[in-house]
């Protein structure tokens, strides 16, 4: 649930949303000039683990080696960590390693 809050109108105060389950994120590949060249889904399997099978081999290797470093728990998360792995990928997304909700 998203709510809009205008800083000039405190009456429209922010509300806490329920926890939304994250089941898919998209890994965006880019070329040397920074243009987007492809989009690959990382989904949650029924057993709760993240499925990297659609990713190019080098990206899959990197994610399986490094995992994704979670700043909040101060540990590397791997596909077995499921939803938190997807959240961490989103949180670590930057201009050069793009991960989004949408393809």
């Amino acid at each position, binding site marked *: 649930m998203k709510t809009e809050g205008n800083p000039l109108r405190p009456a429209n105060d922010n509300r806490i949303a329920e926890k939304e389950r994250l089941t898919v994120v998209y890994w965006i590949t880019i070329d040397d000039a*920074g243009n987007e060249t492809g989009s690959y889904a990382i989904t949650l399997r029924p057993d709760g683990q993240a499925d990297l099978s659609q990713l190019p081999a080098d990206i899959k290797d990197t994610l399986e080696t490094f995992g994704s470093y979670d700043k909040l728990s101060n540990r590397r998360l791997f596909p077995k960590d499921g939803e938190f792995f997807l*959240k961490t990928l989103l949180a670590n997304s930057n*201009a050069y390693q793009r991960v989004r909700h949408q393809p």
Partner: protein
Amino acid sequence: MAAVPLIERFQKNPRGKKGPDRILPPDYLREKKRREAVRRLALEAAKMDDEFGRIFPNPENSRRMEILNSGREIDRQTVGDAGVNAITRRTYEGTPPLTAYVKPQSGESGFRYDAASDSVIQIKRHWNKKTHRLITTEQTYAKGGSGDPVEEQIVNAFRVRSQNFATLKQNIADYYGLAPDEIELNGTEFTPRYGVDRGKTLIREYTASRLDRIFNLGVVPLTALRAENEVHTDPKTGEQTTILENIELVSVQEAAPGKALDAATYREILAQGPKHPGAKSFMRIACLDYLMKSLDRHNENILYDPATQQFSAIDNGLSMGLSQKGVGNQPGELDPLRSIPLSVVLKHANWKLDPEAMASLKQFHDKTLAYLQRREELLRNTQKRAGKPLSVELIGQEIDEEIEREQGGQEFKYLTKLFRMQYGHEKVAQRECLEFIIRLRKLLQTGRPPDISEGWQGGEILPVGVYWPDAA
């Protein structure tokens, strides 16, 4: 008709009433303060860049800095999810045009511990282009008692942090010799690091870029701070209007070549060490990470460009955190240093910083030392003339004017101003500046970062926590 309370009248029409009895809603005042702070900071950064150009002359740096600071935008593309990672890719007019990634301050997530629901709430903000309002969304990030080990760890960490915040602030204040109220650290909305305050990561991006240029390391993409107004484009006429009220602090970082460090490159650099073609820039990042206490240098924040064989360091927002009182007069570990380059270079004992970078660091160090010694000498002379001890506070200005006439210590003074802008408090900046110089000296002694690892297990896949050096 019953009189409408004043506060409600202002909520409906905040600008409707003028005069001394005007009472403004707290949210309005907070927003006003935020806008003023954004304008002030961007202005200060622009002034600092003028000074940088005078002290560290480099025509190419100055040209690119000017474009990043005030260049006209000719193209814009969205890169990340709105509200999650609101980065845009821009092209600025210039010869040749400059491509940069722009990150707004509002895109930075904050985290709050909610005791009632035993949850960690993620707070995100971004501008809504349709309604021209700041949108805040709060979502439960992790909930206690779920049984998920990652979730439990996150909730536990934030619960402890929230409960012990007063003690933590007291320890920080003790280290800097201040009262807890003087420490700028948000006690309800946290960043992922103890010593980095919410809303301060962009300044750190800027500082990291300037530190990189001061020492001619060339591993951090050039970054500027800008106050950017939202531009509204009329869908029918295409006419553009600048919305002055919707002002945002943004960091504008020049696009760097390369992609995030992948597993294959990591294995190569780990095995080859100083023989790797990119070893020079990798060691430079390790040294910079040590100097600026990097707290977040994981593989996604390191770029490698095989064409130029250069590594670059991006996302420097979580660095240069505050310290707390340690043993004796030494800084205590508040956040452990976390850097893949630091951990990798420590595995190769013969890996040193290149002579060019060493010379640059040494030049800065020697000039700083000469300035401090000259200051000391002038202080002694003045006290001798007066025939009695005089406090530095009393005659400091006189001494500084004298040194300024001699054009000494400009580099060190620039550094202290940079730290003052970042930390927002004179005493904190002074102490951090001193600690920075101590780290610089340690680096110069061996030509590589000192072995500060603790509990470091060789062969473990990184990132490995590299901790604060022992008191020495």
